[in-house]
């Protein structure tokens, strides 16, 4: 009887001890997990603050003067500024270009306005040979941006295009959107009408180019000079080949679509060696290619500009007679 009671009380004591032990362990686990959570919050919080500290969130100041160049590119700079020349090659359908615009666009505007940089926008279409709608989106947007440059609102329009970039492979940059975005810059009725006509015309050209001309040309060229050789050709070379092989590119002449294809071809031969143009976005300071990590962060870009000497713009301004209306008629 006595041993029964002792056994029971011993059992109880052990249970009690086990319970306390479990509670202590639970507490230790809670403390440890809490500490770990705090570490995560700290690392992520501080890291986030540091990473976003150099995001210039929206330069809202006045823009430096925009000057359309003979080849359809646009220089944004204070008049007579002596500063490093920052060339920006971008395709409106390229997601990385949109990121560049997001992180670096305001730095460029701010520096151009302050006279510490001469910004040379060189829109292009590296996607012109991709399947529709990637190619057609890219070309329509490029041509529309060029048209906006005729009215001195290239930089504003450039921003709008990147903000509204369609997902790759989806239809976007529609004719109606392109027209509306220009109207958002508050042009005169006459200018808006001329812009609309231009965009309509270019859209026709883009359709013909991407859906008829290029597939036929590519098929022929594949047969005659081989897929491998085509892979190494830039589009403008392929078109030249087509010109003497029954694929007349005359319909591109005088169009902004043709101009942007041409500008894209020339970019590939403009630089050599380590500075060779390979992809978009590419950023050059005084002709020197910036590496991707530098170009893609606002701080890297600012530092690179600060370290560079003065440069020369390597294109000539378009004859200025009120914004190029003279060659507006297709």
């Amino acid at each position, binding site marked *: 009887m006595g041993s029964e009671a002792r056994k029971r009380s011993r059992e109880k004591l052990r249970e009690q001890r086990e319970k306390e032990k479990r509670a202590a362990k639970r507490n230790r686990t809670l403390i*440890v*997990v809490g500490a770990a959570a705090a*570490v*995560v919050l700290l*690392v*992520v919080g501080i890291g986030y603050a540091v990473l976003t500290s150099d995001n210039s969130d929206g330069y809202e100041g006045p823009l430096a003067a925009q000057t359309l160049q003979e080849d359809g590119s646009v220089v944004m700079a204070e008049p007579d500024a002596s500063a490093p020349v920052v060339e920006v090659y971008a395709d409106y359908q390229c*997601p*990385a270009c949109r990121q560049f615009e997001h992180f670096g666009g305001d730095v460029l505007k701010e520096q151009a306005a302050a006279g510490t940089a001469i910004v040379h926008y060189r829109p292009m279409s590296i996607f012109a040979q991709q399947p529709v709608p990637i190619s057609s989106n890219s070309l329509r947007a490029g041509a529309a941006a060029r048209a906006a440059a005729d009215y001195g609102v290239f930089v504003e329009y450039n921003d709008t295009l990147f903000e509204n970039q369609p997902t790759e492979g989806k239809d976007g940059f529609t004719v109606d959107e392109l027209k509306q975005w220009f109207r958002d810059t508050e042009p005169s009725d006459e200018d808006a009408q001329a812009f609309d006509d231009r965009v309509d015309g270019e859209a026709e050209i883009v359709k013909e180019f991407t859906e008829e001309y290029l597939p036929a040309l590519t098929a022929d060229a594949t047969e005659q000079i081989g897929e491998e050789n085509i892979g190494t050709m830039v589009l403008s070379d392929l078109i030249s080949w087509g010109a003497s092989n029954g694929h007349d590119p005359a319909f591109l002449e005088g169009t902004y679509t043709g101009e942007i294809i041409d500008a894209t071809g020339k970019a590939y031969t403009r630089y050599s060696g380590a500075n060779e143009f390979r992809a978009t976005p590419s950023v050059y300071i005084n002709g020197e290619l910036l590496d*991707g990590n530098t170009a893609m*962060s606002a701080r890297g870009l600012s530092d690179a500009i600060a370290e560079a000497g003065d440069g020369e713009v390597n294109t000539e301004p378009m004859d200025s007679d009120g914004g190029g209306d003279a060659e507006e008629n297709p």
Partner: protein
Amino acid sequence: MTETHDDTPTSRPTGRWETVQPWLTLACRVGLAAVLITAAVTKFPPALSVQAVEAYDLFPTEVAQFIGHVLPLFELALALLLLVGLATRQVGAVGALLMIVFIAGILSAMARGLNIDCGCFGGGGQVDPGETTYGLSIARDIAFAAMGAFIALWPRSPFALDRALGLFR
């Protein structure tokens, strides 16, 4: 979880598994931490990792921006915790979960016929059709998830802060 692998030093049998397991767990901790640090560092700068997130076409722009910034930092924090061995079990489980989320993302990209790079270790964005490596990425993530699961199931290992704090001795 169960009591089997926890701090009951007196009653633990000293079999072969009991000697080897802590070192296996340590190897998984270091290995997974190395993977996470590589993944975090190659995602820099954020512009690139934001683009990689956007390529999945799953989130609105602002959310993609946020994920692109925070994900590499989160990976870095997990790696740090694995290395010092704090809250080993929970961190291992979170690591495994993270990998499962990644696998789900890749599967969804595959199912929707996207042609993207997973952006797991930098890179990301569109690639040519036929140049996707979804199978490899998923296999890799399964292996990483397994390491995380191993850590979560057998958190006892040497060189861990948990030990100093009286857990998984």
